[in-house]
């Protein structure tokens, strides 16, 4: 499965807005390219990304083939309580990659 990385600050104060950075290795094949014989290379991209904070969905994103290979995504979260930040990437073929990180909120 695709290799994913997630970076979340280890500690934050309650109410702080933190930055979550995510990176996943994926070819993001557009479906427009052709191989040497002129056959179209079928599309294979990550089309959906969801971020859960302690099990509650906070951000969802739908991607088109115009997202670069090895997609990077950074976004903000409001630190409310200690727990887990989880990001789930969904491939065109339905397979999911999950990566999570812990955060302590004081």
């Amino acid at each position, binding site marked *: 499965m695709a290799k994913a990385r997630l970076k979340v600050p280890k500690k934050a104060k309650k109410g702080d807005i933190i930055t979550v950075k995510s990176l996943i290795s994926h070819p993001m094949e557009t479906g427009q390219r052709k191989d040497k014989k002129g056959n179209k290379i079928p599309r294979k991209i990550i089309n959906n990304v969801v971020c859960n904070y302690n099990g509650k969905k906070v951000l969802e*994103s739908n991607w088109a083939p115009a997202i670069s290979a090895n997609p990077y995504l950074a976004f*903000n979260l409001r630190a409310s309580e200690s727990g887990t930040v989880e990001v789930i990437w969904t491939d065109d073929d339905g397979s999911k990659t999950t990566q999570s990180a812990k955060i302590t909120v004081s």
Partner: protein
Amino acid sequence: MKARDHDGLSRRGFLAAAGGGAVLAATITIVPLDANADVASTKKAVAAITGGKETKSGRIKIKAPQIAENGRVVPLTMSVESPMTDSDYVKSLHVFVQNNPNPDVASFHFTPDCGAAHVSFRCRMGQTSPVIALAEMSDGTFYQTDVNVKVTIGGCGG
């Protein structure tokens, strides 16, 4: 000798004129048509989301390179001004690259828990094009902003 020179010149002159004419014809017929098609397909994509509602300008900030040397990886950062409270927040942000084969890039759906409607990501651009951001607010209004990014080498494959 004199006659041959004259012959050569006139032939060259004719070829140059013909070639120039062909190039001119190509630019006139192909380029504007393509551009119109791209504008139309992007407008259609925007209208599909807004449902024909008017879009206001402002509130969205796009950070993008003026010139992207490599269209395969164009870093973009976008943020929408909003208090992000339960009653007033940015519902979603849609991103389009007008001159791509398919203008859609990404849609981000925010919640008040995000604290700020702010995203950074990297997109592909086939050629120089406006990058369009469309934000949908929780009260149903739309804001739209665009930024032109010049691309040296396209990145949509061929």
